[in-house]
């Protein structure tokens, strides 16, 4: 049996089309969101409750102590996981000329937003930061960070800090159960994944005397965060950027 060129090409093309069609059908039939994600951790912050306790830094101290976050003397070497920012800086798109006077200058707690579309993860060349499939946390692997600071540049919330100096001499106290970092590594809030693992809430949530920070699972309709999101109007930081931040603010 002899095959001419036309017959051969037709057959080969037909086979390729059949294979591609099968792959496409499988891809289209797959569910849109990953079924592996059984949880979605998020936080709702009641800024008014937070303000009632003027000058309170208990959450910041608890977090920084638990995670060995250094406090170098030089401001340009600053490392922070959670801090207070003036309202108009945290929410620049809300801060017009006629912003309500009671909001202007008010300190708002800010930290990593654990975005659904994290730009830091997109730019990391070593996958030292990644979005955890099962609960949506934006994780960090300090073993793998090469200190390129692409993520620092990419994060629109300033949530990432670079260790310009060896952090160990700048620790007020050492929690030996948690590692420190080294010079040349980027760090940020991890939503206390080491505490979540033990079934405990993040350190800041536990430390807040006013219970202004509410932590929970967005996948659970009965959770406290979902209840608050149903009952109250909330803001997110810079939602126009499309990063889908998962920290919600009641102002």
């Amino acid at each position: 049996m002899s095959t001419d060129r036309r017959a051969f090409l037709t057959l080969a093309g037909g086979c390729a089309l059949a294979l591609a069609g099968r792959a496409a059908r499988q891809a289209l039939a797959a569910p849109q969101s990953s079924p592996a994600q059984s949880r979605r951790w998020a936080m709702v912050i009641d800024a008014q409750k937070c303000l009632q306790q003027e000058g309170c830094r208990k959450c910041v101290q608890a977090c920084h102590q638990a995670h060995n976050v250094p406090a170098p003397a030089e401001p340009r070497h600053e490392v922070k996981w959670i801090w207070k920012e003036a309202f108009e800086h945290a929410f620049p798109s809300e801060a017009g000329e006629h912003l309500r006077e009671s909001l202007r200058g008010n300190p708002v707690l800010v930290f990593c937003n654990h975005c659904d579309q994290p730009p830091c993860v997109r730019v990391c060349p070593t996958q030292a930061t990644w979005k955890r499939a099962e609960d949506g946390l934006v994780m960090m692997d300090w073993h793998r960070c090469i200190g390129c600071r692409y993520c620092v540049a990419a994060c629109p919330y300033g949530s990432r800090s670079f260790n310009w100096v060896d952090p160990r001499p700048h620790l007020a106290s050492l929690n030996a159960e948690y590692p420190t970092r080294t010079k040349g590594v980027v760090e940020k809030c991890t939503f206390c994944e080491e505490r979540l693992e033990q079934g405990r809430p993040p350190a800041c949530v536990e430390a807040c005397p006013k219970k202004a920070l509410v932590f929970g699972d967005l996948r659970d309709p009965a959770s406290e965060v979902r209840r608050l999101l149903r009952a109250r109007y909330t803001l997110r930081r810079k939602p126009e950027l499309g990063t889908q931040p998962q920290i919600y603010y009641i102002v």
Partner: protein
Amino acid sequence: MRDQPIIFAGLALFLGLITFPFWFNLARGQTARGPDIQRPGAQLQCAAPTDYMRTSHMELLIQWRDQVVRRNLRRVTAFNGKVFTASLTNTCLAQCHTNKAQFCDRCHNYSGVGTPYCWDCHNEPRAARASLAPAFTDLGSQP
């Protein structure tokens, strides 16, 4: 045979010089014996057999590291069925090898591998506590 004394003196000098390291170490009291490490009690069970740990503990630690950090799997079942929490500081050092200086460091120094950079970030539980005792009132209570 006129040069006999010179030849034998030279030979003696040569032998003396070439065996100098042996004499030197003998005089210093150093022997070829391995390092005198402080082992944990015999009733404690390690995560792997001793022979494996002696040669490949670093591989086990790297495996634990990747498992914990990248895949969030903190429970490891050892060869003997015992379940461990995979953690250098909070399991290995806190439960069994409580003296890093006399266990890890002695052997590392003896074999000339120095201090691996694990310790640039990971802490030794006891020494850290001893030097910064007041800070541990509420933080040292993790299981």
